[in-house]
């Protein structure tokens, strides 16, 4: 075949340059090949590829402009804004109570966390005490939501890497969790369960039994996922050693959450700066060693076990008491009081029509969401509507680390890294 190959036109040798290069395919690592290319004075072109907003492997509508040299990523530019909903602007238009459903829809997998950050910020501004039973109920729902968020992350990431059945297994567990949410609040997602001052309703009668069943079942199921994925050759090849980033760079980029913990820095706001009675619970924080994709995966999988532990302790130690603050200026009075007490009626009327007023001031309150530090900045000007609500979303800040992570690795590693980064575009774009 080589003898008959003629390159077109000029007085060429029997084999074209291209053909000769193809014949001598080398398995040397990429850097060496590039260096060879430079020596041979070949022209390597950088190709800019658009991972459009509609792409099956980007988690949500994330657009990436990837500059490639062959299959190696040289530069990456994320472009966001494709699901920008103007949540912060809408929140300025509504009274404090009505902001809760709006702000819940921001990071749409961690909806209780959005509501928690906002409610905690307003409670700090208005100096409202949250009763201990409400704090424990909040912890229960937050940890359930953390498990649910990690399950979707695991399902979609495994789907990206090719393990399609994990997706269905994770959804099976998530259905159990959403059943629990439906029992306590009536809705599966975006439940408006957290209110300023506590939770909207106490848990119904079968909730505890169902939750205990779930606590029994979940660690075994997480073991199943581990058994399938932990030693899987494909997972190891795709995730081990790919796209590591050290903790110092991550800190300078503002990254928190499982990404930082996978790099070895044990920073978790539940332990460092406990809120909502997290200090009563005994749990560990999984920390990785090298900060590569495999560590990020392992940290999140281990967090599921820790969350189950917290759930069990919270359920065992659930104190009696009111489920929302007794301050009638902030929380609605129970309906049976409306028939007998005039003040209850007036409070109810004022709260429903105008809403409660919060003294002027501003506050920034961070909590630990499944993706990192979720902070809520609320500024009030004394009226019944907030003057500014800003959510510091962890995915928004973590996305800046993506280009540092994938520079110099292959496209396949890019896909795995985007999956392990766990971006939620609703939170990024707000």
């Amino acid at each position, binding site marked *: 075949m080589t003898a008959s190959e003629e390159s077109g036109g000029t007085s060429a040798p029997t084999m074209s340059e291209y053909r000769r290069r193809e014949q001598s395919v080398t398995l040397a690592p990429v850097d060496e090949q590039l260096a060879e290319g430079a020596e041979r004075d070949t022209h390597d072109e950088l190709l800019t590829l658009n991972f*459009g*907003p*509609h*792409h*099956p492997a980007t988690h*949500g*509508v994330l657009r990436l402009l990837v500059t490639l040299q062959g299959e190696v990523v040289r530069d990456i530019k994320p472009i966001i*804004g*494709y*699901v*920008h*909903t*103007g*949540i912060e*602007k*809408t929140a300025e*238009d509504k009274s404090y109570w009505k902001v809760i*459903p*709006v702000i819940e*829809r921001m990071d*749409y*997998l961690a909806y209780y966390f959005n509501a928690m950050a906002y409610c905690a910020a307003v409670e700090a501004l208005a100096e409202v005490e949250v009763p201990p039973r409400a704090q424990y109920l909040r912890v229960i729902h937050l940890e359930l939501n953390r498990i649910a968020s990690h399950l*979707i992350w695991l*399902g979609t990431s495994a789907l990206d890497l090719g393990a399609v059945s994990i*997706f*269905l297994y994770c*959804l*099976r567990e*998530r*259905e159990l969790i*959403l059943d629990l949410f439906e029992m306590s609040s009536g809705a*599966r*997602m*975006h439940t408006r369960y957290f209110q300023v001052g506590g939770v909207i309703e106490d848990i119904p009668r079968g909730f505890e039994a169902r939750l205990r069943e779930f606590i029994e079942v979940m660690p075994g199921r997480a073991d199943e996922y581990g058994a399938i994925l932990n030693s899987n050759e494909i997972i190891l090849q795709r995730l081990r050693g790919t796209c590591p980033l050290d903790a110092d760079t991550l800190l300078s980029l503002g990254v928190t959450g499982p990404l930082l913990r996978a790099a070895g820095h044990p920073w978790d706001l539940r332990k460092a700066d406990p809120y909502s009675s997290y200090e009563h619970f005994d749990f560990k924080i999984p920390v990785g060693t090298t900060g590569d994709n495999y560590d990020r995966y392992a940290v999140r999988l281990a967090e599921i076990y820790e969350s189950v532990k917290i759930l069990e302790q919270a359920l065992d130690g659930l104190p009696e008491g009111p489920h929302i603050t007794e301050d009638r200026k902030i929380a609605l009075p129970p309906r049976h009081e409306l028939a007998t007490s005039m003040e209850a009626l007036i409070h109810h009327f004022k709260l429903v029509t105008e809403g409660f007023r919060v003294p002027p001031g501003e506050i920034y309150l961070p909590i630990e969401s499944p993706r990192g530090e979720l902070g809520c900045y609320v500024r009030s000007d004394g009226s019944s509507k907030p003057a500014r609500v800003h959510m510091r979303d962890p995915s928004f800040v973590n996305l800046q680390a993506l280009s540092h992570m994938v520079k110099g690795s292959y496209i396949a590693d890019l896909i795995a890294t985007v999956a392990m980064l766990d971006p939620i*575009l*609703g939170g990024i*774009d707000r």
Partner: protein
Amino acid sequence: MEVKREPLGAGASADASGLRVREMGSWQLLRGAQLEGANRPGHLRTEEELVGDDLERYVHERVLTTTLDKTVAWARSNSFFPLAFGLACCAMEQFHAAGPRMDIARFGYEAFRASPRQADLIILAGRVSIKMAPIIRRLYDQMLEPKWAISMGACCSSMGVFNNYALVPADKFLPIDVYIPGCPPRPEALMHGVLKLRKMVQDDPDMGWRERYDARGTEEVVPEAFAEQRAGAEPRRAPEGEEAGA
């Protein structure tokens, strides 16, 4: 993009021959000639009665008269290939509809295609921002016809929870066939909407698609009744002035 909101099916604008027809039950058209005048039920009377060639043409365009049409419609309705397109929270419930409990594969719709060229159903799951709207329009244009669009959730059907500067209701730039309310709609609600679409497709395969797009004359298979008319008319293109996407 120009906004044209018209109810499906019953075109307020005139069709090619200048007649204005109202929606009629299909069987009435076939049997209407037998019930004359006062015997015809009131809600099925038309202002201008269709006669002769016009009636035949109307029937041919809208009514499933042949077994082949019925078979094709049945096959199409049972094998939607949805586009894997999730925008926001509703996408999570879309996953659950494809999950093990509410299994969308029971109905044959589990083949979520990544490429719009291979899909015929776009389920707009989530809120459509102004940056995303031209892109969705391009995706929709890339889909093969016959294609259908379901607007899932309150945010794309109307403005949903967020009535503000950043969102666009989906029917401003896409002809939507089924709207599913909810925020987010339960997976059962999504199934209900998809099954409603399935019923609509079985009854009327293109659902007035060509009127919506003012695309008379683009039919591939033409009944002989007006093949000669088609030979004279030029094929119409999509409504003038509307560009697909920014």
